[in-house]
């Protein structure tokens, strides 16, 4: 039965599995539980148009595979996968769970295709990840559309605009959940629950607890529906936390981006080709420290650390075609002074910063494809690569703000995706999958397409285990 609104669902029944959330992990759990024979209700707090959580902004999934295929250009094996994860997390990972995620991701593409996913062959825009990551045709929203269609066909009951506002949990045992929809509250009973409701990155009040008032200036790159309500309720009911509550994945995005849901197009890739100044027109970090693909994820925090959480990336016309086009027009001016005026920066200060940078720039042979020898000497902070004087008008600027992708704080789980309680016992009928438990595996840093791996693998585990538990009685 397909439920377009809550009145179509028979709420008097006790479902075998209640899935809270509507993104990748939630759907993988719901489909798997249904295929295992359980009755499944999925509560998505977003309206249908915005369903799918942050998965609707994703594009690819990283999985273990021994051979090249139409969508992957070569093999990607466990050792390399594990090394990649160790590198980005700096060792802050639960090896047992991480290895489970890696191993059980083997040939995930087949399972995904069987559930409606379509992949695209490597094209111009995807080549750098084409060996390790399979790209969804049309991106994450297309994948979500396919999964929702498959889940409906399997007979998963789905309710949109249903935010879970209360969980009845007694001594680590889930009893029922209440959700609010159109101003009314409804109670639903289930034998097991899968929490797949994401992190709290869209909850500004919670972010402020961690970051103080500066969180007011953060931009949330993804869904506005990840408010962390389910995470908080479970933590308050005795679930054990994992991950640093002070950490989040943040990149520098265009300051003109919408507060929520701007997604991929608001990112800016011009930083390595120019300089970045704060509101006092001063540089504050080495813009050319390493390749952008290895540095973009630190710039969110760097900008967050500047006064008023604002910065400006400046380039001259030599560099305008070197990076992916961005969605907002550059702010242009014929001189540094005019540019400062347009940015409302102190013109004299900006002219001094640029002049000093230009003087200290050693001319080398510029090459964006390698760590080239264009660097500054005797400058603090230095610029280690791709440093060229800003001397060719027109000059262009992009304002930058910290853009949060996701938070790391989550629920501790075991290998069967059971939520761990504070006394280190696994809860019998509470499971978690996706971003809400990704902090077990990603203690810090990020690996492209790995959030989707965790969501898919643990979504399937949670769905299977929950259905098994429910059907055993």
């Amino acid at each position, binding site marked *: 039965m397909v439920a377009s609104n809550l009145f179509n669902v028979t709420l008097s029944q006790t479902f075998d599995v209640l899935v809270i959330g509507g993104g990748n992990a939630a759907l993988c759990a719901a489909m798997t539980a249904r295929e295992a024979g359980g009755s499944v209700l999925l509560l998505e707090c977003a309206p249908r*148009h915005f369903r799918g959580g942050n998965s*609707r902004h994703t594009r690819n999934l990283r999985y273990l595979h021994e051979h090249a295929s139409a969508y992957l250009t070569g093999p990607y094996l466990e050792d390399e996968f594990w090394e990649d994860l160790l590198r980005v997390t700096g060792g802050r990972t639960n090896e047992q769970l991480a290895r489970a995620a890696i191993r059980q991701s083997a040939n995930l593409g087949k399972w995904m295709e069987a559930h409606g996913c*379509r992949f695209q062959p490597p094209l111009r825009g995807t080549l750098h990840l084409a060996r390790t990551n399979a790209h969804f045709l*049309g991106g994450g*929203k297309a994948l979500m559309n396919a999964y929702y269609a498959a889940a409906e066909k399997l007979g998963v009951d789905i309710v949109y605009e249903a935010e879970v506002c209360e969980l009845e949990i007694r001594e680590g045992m889930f009893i029922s959940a209440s959700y609010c929809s159109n101003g009314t509250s409804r109670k639903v009973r289930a034998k097991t629950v899968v929490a797949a409701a994401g992190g709290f990155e869209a909850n500004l009040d919670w972010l402020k607890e961690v970051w103080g008032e500066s969180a007011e200036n953060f931009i949330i790159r993804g869904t506005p529906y990840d408010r962390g309500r389910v995470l908080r309720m479970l933590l308050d009911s005795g679930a054990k936390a994992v991950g640093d509550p002070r950490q989040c994945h943040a990149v520098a995005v265009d300051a003109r981006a919408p507060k929520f*849901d701007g997604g991929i*197009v608001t990112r800016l890739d011009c930083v390595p080709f120019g300089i970045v100044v704060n509101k006092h027109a001063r540089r504050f970090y080495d813009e050319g420290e390493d390749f952008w693909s290895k540095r973009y994820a630190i710039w969110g925090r760097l900008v967050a650390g500047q006064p008023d959480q604002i910065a400006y990336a400046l380039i001259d016309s030599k560099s305008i075609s070197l990076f992916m*086009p961005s969605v907002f027009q550059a702010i242009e001016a014929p001189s540094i002074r005019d540019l400062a005026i347009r940015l409302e920066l102190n013109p004299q200060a900006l002219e001094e910063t640029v002049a000093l940078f230009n003087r200290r720039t050693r001319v080398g042979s510029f090459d964006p494809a390698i760590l080239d020898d264009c660097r500054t000497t005797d400058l603090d902070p230095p610029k280690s690569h791709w440093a060229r004087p800003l001397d060719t008008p027109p000059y262009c600027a992009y304002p930058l703000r910290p853009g949060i992708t996701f938070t790391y704080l989550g629920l501790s789980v075991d290998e069967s995706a059971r939520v761990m309680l504070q006394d280190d016992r696994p809860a019998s009928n509470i499971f978690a999958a996706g971003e809400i438990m990704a902090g077990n595996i990603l203690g810090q840093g990020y690996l492209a397409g790995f959030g989707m791996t965790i969501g898919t693998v643990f979504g399937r585990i949670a769905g299977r285990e929950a259905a098994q538990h429910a059907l055993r009685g």
Partner: protein
Amino acid sequence: MPYVDSIKEAGRVMTICNACRYCEGFCAVFPAMELRRTFSDQDLRYLANLCHNCRGCYYACQYAPPHEFDVNVPRTFAELRFECYRGFVRPRVLAEMLRHNGFRVAILTVLSVVCTVMLLFGFQSPEVVFGIHSGEGAFYRVIPYALMVAVFSVLAVFVLAVILSGTVEFLRKTGTTPGKWFDFRSILRATADALQLKYLEGGGQGCNYPGERFSMIRRWFHHLVFYGFMLCFAATTVAAIYDHFLQRPAPYPFLSWPVVLGTVGGLFLLAGTGGLLVLKRRMDPAPTTPQTTGMDVTFLMLLFFTSLTGLLLLVLRETPAMGSLLAVHLGGVVGLFISMPYGKFIHAPYRFAALVRNAIEQSRQGD
């Protein structure tokens, strides 16, 4: 929407798409977009006409309405295409035909059918009109051979000239010239793309038509229309050769090339246009513009009407109804001919021109 706005909107949308690029696997539009950083009016007209309206990118779009970015590529391009159809029409005074096109083409066709029937009754006695004619030259006893040839020759020359000049204007307004455009290998490649309707494939699973679900149904119906049309064209050509060079005037026996080709073609057209009309009734209107609904529907109905009357003529050719049916059928064909450069048909040469341009661009990238 006035021209300036639809161009501006297309530029805004392409700027967002070019920063995202998630849809590059669906069709030719996005890889073509990726070759550019900024979009001139000419680029946008070209991209709009390269779009086959498969709608894959609309349902896959994280920025589709109600998102505040309000990205609706198929609709934006449908609006711009419509402006192109209006803008490139020759002679200019007939550009108004594109406004309320469904209504105007319908009126034109009705007029043409009524005129033909009236002429028939004006010049021929009822005994001839309602008589039973059989054997060689049966049709020409009702409507003289010379008249038919004269009318359709003049019409064919007119229609070809208008379509050609419109296409040249299209090339100019999309930033190329017939000389630069004429590249043999690219024309072959584009012909293959067009004959397969490659870009109604949506990356392998079909297009999102009539609704959100992927389906090949529209592609199959369009194939029926296209190949049905070509079979009817072939039937007419063979008949002309029989008549002029082999001294075998129509009508032909049921098991002859002109009749077999025409019958199969007519049935294809009936099924194809009928199917497309049914799909159109069911389609999600969000990813297209209501401006062109009349134009699309009338063109389909006109094709349906001419195939139906053609097939009826075949079945009833040895009955008293033949004379009137012949007039109605020929009237319909005249309406179809005249309206070809001023209605939905014009998408075909423009789309083909855009496909050739795309083949040229992409082959240069490969070098």
